[in-house]
C-alpha cells in the first residue's frame, strides 16, 4: 500500500515536472532581433496601434506618453495592476534590453523568466511582427521616465503562482490567426491590426471558463469585467451592419452612423486609432466586413 502511494506520488511529481517543462516561460530565441534597426517614427504609429497607453498611463490621466502604470483590471481571478513601463531605470523598464521588452510583449515572459498574466494582452500581441516591435521599443525609449512604484497584483492562490500560467499560454496564445482563408492584402493588413496589434478581440470576444478568448465567438461582444450589465458590442459584420466608411469614421471621431458617440474604454481605443494612417483604418474596415460571414 505504502509503495503504491509512493509510486503514485512520484508519478504525479513527474507529470507536474513534465508539465512545467512543456509550459516553461519562453523568451524570444537569442539573435531574433539582431540586425533589425528600430525606426522611432514608425514606432510611434505602432505604439498607437497597440494601445500601450490605454493600460499603462496613470488612471484618469490624459497624458498618453507617461507610462507610470496603476490602472486596475478586475477579473474572475483577482485584480491586476498595470506596472510602470516608463523609461525610469528603477521603477520602469529603462534598463531592460530590447530582447527583454520584446519577449514580454510577444511571449508574455519576464526578464527573470516568469510568465505574465494575460491581462497583459500578449495572447494577441504574439501575432505581431518582430520588426514592428523593435520600432515600438525604439519609440518607447524616447518617452519620459516616471518614478511611481508598480503596485503588486491582488490575486489569491493558485493564480498567484505564475508557473500555473504555462498551461493557459499553451492553450490560448500563439501566433495563429483566427480568420483564415484567401484574404486580400487589405484584409490581411486589417487582420494584423485587429487580431494582433489592436487586440480588439481582448474586449470584444467572450472568454471561456479558463479566461481564454472563445474564438468560436470571435468579436461577438462580451461582458465588461467589473461592470455589471455592460457589454462590448457584437462587431461581426452581420450584427454591426456598418459600411466601411462608417467604421473608418467611428475609429477617427467616435461617432456612430446614428451620430451617437462612443463611450467606455472604446474612447481610449479611438484616441489611438485616429492616429493611424487612412490606409490602416480602411484595412481594419475591410477585415471587419468579413468577420462572421462566409467570405474568407
Amino acid at each position, binding site marked *: 500500500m505504502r509503495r503504491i502511494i509512493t509510486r503514485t506520488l512520484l508519478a504525479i511529481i513527474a507529470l507536474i515536472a513534465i508539465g512545467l517543462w512543456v509550459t516553461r516561460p519562453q523568451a524570444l530565441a537569442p539573435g531574433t532581433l539582431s540586425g533589425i534597426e528600430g525606426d522611432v517614427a514608425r514606432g510611434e504609429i505602432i505604439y498607437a496601434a497597440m494601445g500601450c497607453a490605454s493600460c499603462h498611463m496613470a488612471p484618469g490621466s490624459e497624458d498618453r506618453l507617461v507610462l507610470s502604470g496603476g490602472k486596475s483590471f478586475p477579473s474572475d481571478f483577482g485584480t491586476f495592476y498595470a506596472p510602470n513601463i516608463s523609461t525610469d531605470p528603477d521603477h520602469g523598464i529603462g534598463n531592460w534590453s530590447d530582447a527583454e521588452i520584446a519577449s514580454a510583449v510577444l511571449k508574455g515572459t519576464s526578464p527573470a523568466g516568469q510568465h505574465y498574466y494575460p491581462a497583459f494582452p500578449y495572447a494577441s500581441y504574439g501575432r505581431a511582427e518582430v520588426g514592428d516591435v523593435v520600432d515600438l521599443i525604439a519609440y518607447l525609449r524616447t518617452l519620459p521616465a516616471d518614478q511611481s512604484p508598480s503596485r503588486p497584483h491582488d490575486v489569491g492562490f493558485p493564480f498567484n503562482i505564475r508557473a500555473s500560467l504555462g498551461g493557459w499560454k499553451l492553450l490560448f496564445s500563439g501566433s495563429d490567426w483566427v480568420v483564415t482563408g484567401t484574404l486580400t492584402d487589405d484584409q490581411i493588413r486589417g487582420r494584423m491590426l485587429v487580431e494582433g496589434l489592436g487586440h480588439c478581440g481582448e474586449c470584444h470576444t467572450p472568454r471561456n471558463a479558463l479566461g481564454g478568448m472563445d474564438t468560436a465567438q470571435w468579436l461577438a461582444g462580451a461582458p465588461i469585467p467589473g461592470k455589471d450589465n*455592460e457589454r462590448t458590442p457584437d462587431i461581426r459584420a452581420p450584427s454591426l451592419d456598418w459600411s466601411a466608411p462608417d467604421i473608418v469614421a467611428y475609429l*477617427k471621431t467616435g461617432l456612430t452612423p446614428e*451620430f451617437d458617440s*462612443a*463611450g467606455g474604454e*472604446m474612447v481610449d481605443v479611438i484616441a489611438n486609432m485616429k492616429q493611424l494612417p487612412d490606409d490602416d483604418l480602411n484595412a481594419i474596415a475591410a477585415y471587419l466586413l468579413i468577420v462572421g460571414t462566409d467570405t474568407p
Partner: protein
Amino acid sequence: MRKTLVVTLATVAISVAALAGADGHADPKQIEAAVKARQAHMQLYSFHLATLGGMAKGEIAYDAEAAGSAADALVSLVQLPQGGYWLPGSDNASIENTRALPAIWAADSKVGEAAGAMVEAAMAMQAAAGTDLAALQGAIGAVGEACGGCHKPYRASAN
C-alpha cells in the same frame, strides 16, 4: 469671444454645481421626466451632428449654409441650462432606463469640465462649419472627442 466663452463655461459649471448640491429627493415622476428630457437633449445633438458628420463623411454634399445652421443649433444646445435634467437619484444604480453613471454626482465629479469642453468644441465647429468642407472636417473630430470625453466616465455601455 474669449470673454463669452469664459462666461459660458462658468454658467455650465454653476448649473452642474447647483445640481450636485441639491439633495432634496425628487419624486419618481419628476425623475422619469428628467431622464426623458436629457435623453431627448442628447438625441438633438445627434440630429444636428448628422448634418455635420454626414458632410464630413461625404455622404451629404457640403453646403455652407446648412452646415452653419447645424453648428449654430449645436452651440445653442450645449449652452442650454441642463441643471433640471440631472437630478440626484437619477443614476443607473438607482433607477431603470438610464445609462447615466453615479459618478456624475460624486464629490470629485468633473462633469462640469466635460460640459465645458463640449461648449468649446461646439464653438470651434461653429467657426469652421460655414468656411469650407476641409474646415468642417478638421473640427468634427474634436466634437466627437468632446462627446466621448463625457460618455467615457459618465455613461455606461449598453448591455
